[in-house]
């Protein structure tokens, strides 16, 4: 029988929630890495028991954790003792060192700071881990300050893909309120050389050669907070989602505006339609209906909570523009939580399950594609990320 495993990253640890295919009774395991910020936990599509986790702390910096048994035990890749002090090479699974030269050989060391001056790139943390679709030992990391790293040895060593920062627009990127983070990585299941990423506040980018070279894909985006509202870069993209059957169709929740692209990001059109507010962070696609998408509208960029204290997921069955509120089982009064950008996911069971976590520590699940919701857990630390594995 099928089984569902929900991987939850929170401000103070990670949790693994498991259920059978009915998704009625849940076991809660955790906190794993109690006290640490767990920005993201994600499993390999090739080997579902291979999990990668980003563990970070203001005191101790970044740590990468890996599990080979579905989250029962964890290890820091390459953490075995050295034969003697100073022996080398020493794997360093938490060593994210920026490549200082772009493809043209010129140093690439600064980006735009909040005050408009140039500022050096400084590694802060890993926001998102994206395991390869074909190799359990290959995994991508999106980091703050924004850059893309890759490990091909199960997380023991990391190397930057410098073509992203080096393609030319890097000095125009700037941090949003949450920092300058690369938070979205999408691997094209039909074209192994195509990768999409998104950065706050730079925009979306695409590589068609496996990450060697990149180009901005932001045509059609409009952002009021930058001088040229339709600039090539500078847009605060919050999240992008794709259905694996149609990798050229992308859905985006931007700082404001919900957008879609039908040409692999070459152009975007707004599909906010009748949403009560088009600000938000999450966006995701139904597992079996590529035109069914979900967002959680948030009041505004300064009021990070639902409108009128009512937590509502909005669903469009037409790929945008026409939206319906999904409220059954969700609090409809006095609710002032946020749903962060990586905190929604779907399972692939026949009746698609939809899951999201809140900054109030609730993880909600719907086993009927959003028609109704129940909390799996109510009182976790603030949820940073939610990923779902459907296991056979």
């Amino acid at each position: 029988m099928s089984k569902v495993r929900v991987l939850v990253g929170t401000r103070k640890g990670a949790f693994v929630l498991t259920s059978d295919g009915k998704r009625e009774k849940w076991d809660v395991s955790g906190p794993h890495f109690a006290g640490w910020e767990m920005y993201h936990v994600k499993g390999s599509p090739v080997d579902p028991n291979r999990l990668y986790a980003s563990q970070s702390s203001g005191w101790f910096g970044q740590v990468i954790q890996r599990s080979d048994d579905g989250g029962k035990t964890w290890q820091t890749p390459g953490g075995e003792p050295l034969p003697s002090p100073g022996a080398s090479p020493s794997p360093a699974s938490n060593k994210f060192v920026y490549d200082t030269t772009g493809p043209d050989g010129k140093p690439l060391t600064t980006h735009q700071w909040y005050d408009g001056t140039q500022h050096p790139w400084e590694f802060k943390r890993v926001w998102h881990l994206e395991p390869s679709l074909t190799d359990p030992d290959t995994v991508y990391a999106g980091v703050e300050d924004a850059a893309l790293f890759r490990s091909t040895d199960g997380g023991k060593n990391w190397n930057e893909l410098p073509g992203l920062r080096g393609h030319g627009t890097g000095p125009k990127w700037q941090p949003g309120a949450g920092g300058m983070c690369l938070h979205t990585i999408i691997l094209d299941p039909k074209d192994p050389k195509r990768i999409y990423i998104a950065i706050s506040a730079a925009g979306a980018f695409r590589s068609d050669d496996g990450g060697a070279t990149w180009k901005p894909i932001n045509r059609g985006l409009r952002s009021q907070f930058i001088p040229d509202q339709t600039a090539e870069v500078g847009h605060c993209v919050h999240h992008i989602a794709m259905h694996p059957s149609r990798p050229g169709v992308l859905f985006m929740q931007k700082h404001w505006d919900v957008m879609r692209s039908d040409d692999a990001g070459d152009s975007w059109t707004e599909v906010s339609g009748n949403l009560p507010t088009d600000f938000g962070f999450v966006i995701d696609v139904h597992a079996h209906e590529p035109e069914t998408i979900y967002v959680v509208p948030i009041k505004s960029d300064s009021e990070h909570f639902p409108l009128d204290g009512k937590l509502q997921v909005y669903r469009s069955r037409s790929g945008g523009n026409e939206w319906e509120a999904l409220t059954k089982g969700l609090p409809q009064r006095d609710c002032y939580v946020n749903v962060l950008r990586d905190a929604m996911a779907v399972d692939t069971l026949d009746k698609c399950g939809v899951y999201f976590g809140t900054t109030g520590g609730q993880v909600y699940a719907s086993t009927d594609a959003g028609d109704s919701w129940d909390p799996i857990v109510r009182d976790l630390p603030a949820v940073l990320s939610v990923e779902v594995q459907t296991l056979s």
Partner: protein
Amino acid sequence: MTSYVIRVELPQHLRKLAGIEGEAKLEVEGLVTQRSVLDALEARYPMLSGTIRDHVTQQRRAFLRFFACAEDLSHELPDTPLPDAVVQGTEPFLIIGAIAGG
């Protein structure tokens, strides 16, 4: 070359990360300094690399302090010899996390 057994006390989160119960006891050869102690610590427990000092610059992470013998040694140069009591193992070398809420 003379070797010494140095006692190192770590913050709870780092003890847990490295699977250390109580103090870490590290064999250090030659001059006992912050650098040689941290080199020995990271060699024995590679998962601690980068959590106390930066991988590249080797600078102490901002929210950590180094104490010993009731003295704050955080701003000493990394190759300054540690106090004799630390070298002889009568006092531990303390790595302390800054107090902060949240």
